[in-house]
């Protein structure tokens, strides 16, 4: 089921109104320097007023059963507003990992809490290098009782994870760890014994990241043993499309900010937007934003339709939106001149977010090959 255009417009305007009220720049700046890096009251309102955590979770697991198109609208708005909240980690990474596992029991156990906004969650994949390559996963899972550790039918995880979004605050951590069967997905409680999480210093303070140390942490297998690689691939496509929506929203905001400044700032007796250098810069930004938005929205639609073109479209959206956001975030500063690189001006917050989003899943050094792979080239 895909909402029609007018329903999407309604959703967009409800989310935008909410975020303008609850996540204005002052709130973002305050949360950037707080622990936790989000406001639990706003998170609760996001659930109560807009039911957003459950938007894209199937109805059978307590959600509203919408899909990537509707989620994309929400993420575009969150990207515009630089909302500090555990939404991406919980709803995109964690919930999708559970769904991708095909483990109905785990879905029934874990998703209703997420849908209800009661559980925040995250997914821990990358280790030292930040790579999502399943071959580079070295965290280990052993059965309880194996190797003399603990007892019973569960598992124990040992190793280190990095770049875990909202990793210090998540109630539920999904962890990819290696068994003899290969990389596999596990669920771990946020406060589980043996699990320590410490904040990492980040380029983009609006997206908290943590380093996790797991020392024989009790865990539950999600999906089948050894299915981790396949789950990671599915989550990566989905998360690329979701991230692309955030990036597209952020880059349109940069374009709008730059164009507004170009229309109103006067130098040499003219609005600076009447100078061709500024005008063409804005036109170049517009071209990038239109491409990015089309790529992101089309990928979401193809995902919702279950189209065979979806994996390619996910790759295209990831590259097009990464590039557009970085470009518009840079050029927005340039159009603003000196004021644009002050701490007080919001332009740098978008610059930081743009760079951190571009590199989140590996960046240009890996995403080109990933796209060609999806194209069969």
């Amino acid at each position, binding site marked *: 089921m895909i909402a029609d255009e007018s329903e999407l417009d309604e959703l967009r305007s409800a989310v935008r109104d909410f975020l303008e009220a609850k996540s204005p720049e002052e709130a973002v700046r305050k949360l950037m320097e707080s622990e936790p890096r989000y406001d639990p009251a706003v998170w609760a309102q996001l659930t109560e007023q807009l039911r957003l955590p459950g938007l894209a979770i199937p109805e059978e697991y307590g959600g509203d059963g919408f899909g990537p198109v509707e989620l994309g609208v929400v993420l575009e708005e969150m990207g515009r507003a630089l909302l500090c909240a555990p939404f991406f980690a919980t709803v995109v990474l964690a919930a999708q990992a559970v769904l991708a596992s095909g483990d109905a029991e785990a879905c029934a156990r874990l998703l209703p809490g997420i849908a209800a906004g009661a559980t925040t969650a995250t997914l821990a994949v990358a280790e030292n290098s930040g790579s999502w390559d399943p071959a580079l996963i070295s965290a280990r899972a052993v059965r309880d009782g194996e190797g003399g550790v603990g007892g019973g039918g569960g598992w124990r995880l040992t190793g280190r994870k990095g770049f875990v979004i909202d990793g210090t605050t998540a109630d539920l951590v999904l962890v990819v760890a290696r068994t003899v069967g290969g990389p596999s997905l596990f669920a771990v409680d946020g406060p589980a014994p043996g699990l320590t999480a410490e904040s990492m210093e980040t380029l983009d303070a609006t997206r908290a990241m943590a380093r996790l140390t797991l020392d024989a942490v009790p865990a539950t297998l999600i999906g089948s043993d050894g299915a981790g690689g396949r789950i990671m691939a599915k989550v990566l496509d989905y998360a690329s499309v979701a991230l692309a929506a955030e990036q597209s929203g952020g880059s349109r905001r940069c374009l709008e900010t730059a164009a507004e400044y170009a229309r109103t700032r006067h130098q040499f007796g003219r609005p600076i937007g009447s100078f061709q250098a500024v*005008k063409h810069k*804005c036109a170049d930004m517009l071209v990038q934003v239109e491409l990015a938005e089309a790529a992101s929205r089309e990928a979401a639609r193809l995902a919702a339709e279950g189209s065979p073109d979806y994996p*390619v479209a996910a790759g295209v959206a990831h590259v097009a939106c990464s590039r557009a956001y970085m470009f518009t975030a840079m050029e927005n500063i340039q159009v603003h001149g000196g004021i644009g690189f002050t701490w007080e001006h919001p332009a740098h917050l978008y610059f930081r977010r743009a760079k951190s989003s571009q590199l989140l899943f590996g960046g240009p050094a890996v995403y080109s090959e990933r796209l060609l792979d999806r194209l069969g080239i």
Partner: protein
Amino acid sequence: MEHDMQAFAAEVRRFLDAHVAKAPDRTAFTWGEGDDSMAYFSSLPPEEEREQVRRAREWQRIRYENGFGWITGPPEYGGRGLTPVHDLLYDAIESEYDVADTGTLSVIGLGMIGPTILAHAPQPLKDHWLPAMYRGDAIACQLFSEPGAGSDLASVTTRAVRDGEDWVLNGQKVWTSVAQHSQIGLALTRTNPDAPKHRGITAFLVPMDTPGVEVRPLRQMTGGADFNEVFLTDVRIPDDHRLGEVDGGWTVALTTLMNERATVGSEGAGPVAAALSPDRLSALMRATWTWDDRALRGRLAELLVDVLATEHLNARALRKLHAGVAPGPEMSVSKLLYGQNLTKAAHFVSDVLGPRAIADTGQWGTYAWTELLLATPALRILGGTEEIMKNILAERVLGLPKEPVTTAAKEVRH
């Protein structure tokens, strides 16, 4: 609205299914088989070109007889009386079929000159020429650009001087496509050299067989000649062939220019579609043993992102059309990207080919790419330079202010 469009789309498909076949997949191919031409400009031998024009006229006549000859035109001239969105939707659907290329008739004549005649010509000219054009009998060209008036059309200097009931035209026009096939041309002339430049222009409909009209092919850098210069020497045109007021030709010209438009999904069509096909490009890399060069692969991925994202932009515009909504800036953006993507593709491929792009070894599908490479500079200039298109995007979509009128320029403007 969406329902109406669906009914219209269904009608279009019934008409097309009845007359023509679906287009073959232009991106499907087998390496080494068939014609490896990558020409953006056609440059056919004269007899083939005449045959192509004949087929275009024939298909236009069939469209006309079935109510699709002039979708936006008024019924009294054989039009259908529908909206520009219907027109764009028709084009988009037709592009899925294997029909004759009617560009010779439609891009300039039916798309731009027809609406101008409708808006500004005296009744007898309308009665005669409009049905003739949309039935495929008459071809029209645009006698606007001059060597000294390119981006700045209002600077035309071709003179028209009153002589009794006639006007006598003298001057030179340039970049006139299809002039060699045209029966009529719409000419902008200077009738008052003393007025501000936009206020001294008059428009005339010039029968191309009038004595003194000379069409000379203009050779472009690819070596072919897809445009013309048109020399007007003491060309005598009756006053009843005037469009609009004397000295009011700028308004006429604006009507013509406002009817210039991109069609949705133009990248998908044409003989150069192969240039942007992932399969074709990866086959080329295999054939040149560069398939595993990650530096080239990285650039291929960058190029394909542009190409595929542009396709997504077009797909979204098309979906809007089907819902009866006029597309927004997507179409202007798509037009700009069309030239940029082909330019990137041509240079990427030349890097893949290396020396094989600079001398013909005879290997299939290699040196042939130079035809496209040599056409790419034109793509950034024809139909509005990249600079003019960026001005338009920034001013019309983003609302950025125009350049202030300078004191020098102000004197000669209205």
